[in-house]
């Protein structure tokens, strides 16, 4: 019982359930299935970005370029469309390959050039920001890819396609982290890079994998965001930087690396969307909304993200 109460993923899930139940009674319509489903759809984008972020943070790094990669994949999709590609599958694969490539470049900079993750990914974000304005020219991109449109709006059996995709990817990431040698290497690398190297872990390849996965997940998240919005524009990915890091830490993963699980990021993502929904209900000015969001996230992090005492 005590061990269960100490489990952060479980605690975060409980917080989400309590907030849903209280808000459901306080505001009619909040607890209805379409509204809950809508929140889960929004959370699936954060959850996918958070999946990559979880892997990177567990491996002892951080990815500050997620927002830029999400935007990149929405802007790049129409550019990769050809007339013979009627299903849009090639474009989708091309976008996923492109975003993975960006992640791999991050990994190369960090593993081979020994640039600090924060600098490497921030510089990548700056680089992409310029590239994106160049590609999109400040105008919005309209969605014309059938697969992405289906992903964003289809609801087979009343259950959204994007939530299903999220569930499948969650399963894969959980298995990868906790049941494969690569996952064990991520944890080893994050806990103590020197010890990991001395135990025969290939540091460079492992780092490369972590950032590659993050890039891939951001690419997927970007496609979902595009599918839901119907439009891609520069800045569409911006909310996902803080959201992904907050979801990871809310889920009990240590920002210092080596400890955590994607199982915590899942309720963390849902919690963030719930907070945003509640703030929208309050109907505040944009400034007050930011203050409320930051304060609530900070307050929740105080519950779950504190590091151990020094002595």
């Amino acid at each position: 019982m005590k061990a269960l109460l100490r489990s952060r993923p479980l605690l975060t899930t409980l917080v989400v359930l309590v907030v849903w139940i209280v808000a459901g009674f306080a505001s009619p319509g909040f607890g209805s299935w379409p509204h809950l489903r809508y929140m889960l759809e929004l959370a699936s984008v954060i959850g996918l970005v958070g999946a990559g972020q979880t892997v990177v943070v567990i491996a002892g790094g951080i990815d500050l370029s997620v927002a830029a990669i999400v935007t990149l994949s929405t802007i790049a999709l129409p550019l990769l469309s050809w007339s013979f590609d009627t299903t849009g599958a090639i474009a989708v694969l091309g976008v996923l390959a492109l975003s993975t490539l960006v992640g791999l470049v991050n990994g190369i900079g960090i593993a081979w050039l020994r640039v600090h993750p924060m600098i490497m990914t921030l510089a990548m974000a700056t680089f992409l920001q310029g590239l994106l304005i160049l590609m999109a020219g400040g105008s919005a991109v309209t969605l014309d890819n059938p697969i992405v449109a289906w992903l964003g709006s289809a609801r087979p059996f009343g259950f959204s396609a994007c939530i299903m995709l999220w569930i499948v990817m969650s399963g894969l990431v959980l298995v990868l982290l906790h049941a494969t040698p690569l996952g064990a290497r991520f944890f080893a690398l994050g806990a103590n890079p020197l010890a990991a190297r001395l135990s025969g872990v290939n540091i460079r390849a492992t780092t490369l994998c972590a950032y590659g996965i993050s890039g891939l997940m951001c690419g997927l998240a970007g496609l979902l965001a595009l599918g839901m919005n119907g439009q891609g524009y520069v800045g569409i990915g911006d909310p996902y930087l803080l959201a992904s890091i907050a979801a990871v830490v809310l889920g009990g993963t240590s920002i210092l690396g080596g400890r955590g699980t994607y199982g915590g990021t899942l309720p963390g993502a849902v919690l963030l969307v719930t907070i945003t929904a509640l703030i929208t209900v309050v109907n505040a000015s944009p400034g007050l909304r930011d203050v409320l969001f930051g304060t609530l996230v900070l307050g929740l992090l105080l519950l779950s993200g504190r590091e151990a005492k020094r002595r």
Partner: protein
Amino acid sequence: MMPSLYWQIQWRRNRRLTPLYGVVLLLLVVYGWLFPGLFSRAGLAHFTQSWFPLALVAMAQAILMLTGGISLAVGSLVSLGAVVAATTMGATGSLVSMLLVLAAGLATGAASGAIVALLRLPAIIVTLAGSFIIGGLALIILPRPGGMILPWLSAVLAGNNPTVLLGLLILLVLGWKFYLATPGGIALYAAGENPVAAYRSGIAVEATVIAAFAISGMLCTLAGLFVAAQTGSGDPVIGTTFTLNSIAAVVLGGVGFLGGEGTMRGALAGSLLLTVMINVMFFLGMPPVAQYIAQGIIIVVAVALPHLLGRRLAP
């Protein structure tokens, strides 16, 4: 004995930064060659104005990184300083308004420092959430660009005379030297290098971190005041670019992410390098978009280069 030891340490610190000084000097020469007006009084004034806010936020970021922290709220603090200055100056006069700007930075900085040090949340998370809170506060104070800065203050800070700014910079550097000579300054490096050892040697690590955050916040809002003086009014989102640029400048200046490693002169040289780089790119007629791309590449190359060269030199 003491003075000679002091200069020995200074010499060793400068020697590590020699390549950086060289690159800065080289770029300055290129800049002066492209734009001969740099050496006139007005040219120098404009160059100092483009450097000054970045120098301030680089100092703000360096203090935190020396303690092993980092701030992602630099940009929103700059915005906060700008809007506080622009909204209060008309009603209260310039002196009170400047004091309010400094107090705002001191208070928000100390508050984030207290959360980091006393409640044990990692600095990166606190300042990331803090950037929303502080940026939101700036939007509440001044929802859209407006307010005003007294014309004489704009003329003094952003006119055609660089003396005031350079004087302010020298004052700040002297202040930093003085701070380093006090127990608080020594504690800053000790707390960053090894907090446990510092704590067991009787250093108040928590107080040191809170002081660093407070000073850092004050420098950021001061930069905001200056940016507002430059434009003559306040803008609630004007500071956004300063977060990345402050980190880039400090890292270019050789300050380490783990704390206790690096120097303020390095951070200042890094900010100078970044400013000259941006100015040269602007002068070569590169569109702002290409500047982003070039900046991203240059930062990575500049940070990776010492490692690549070092590996070649050392077997």
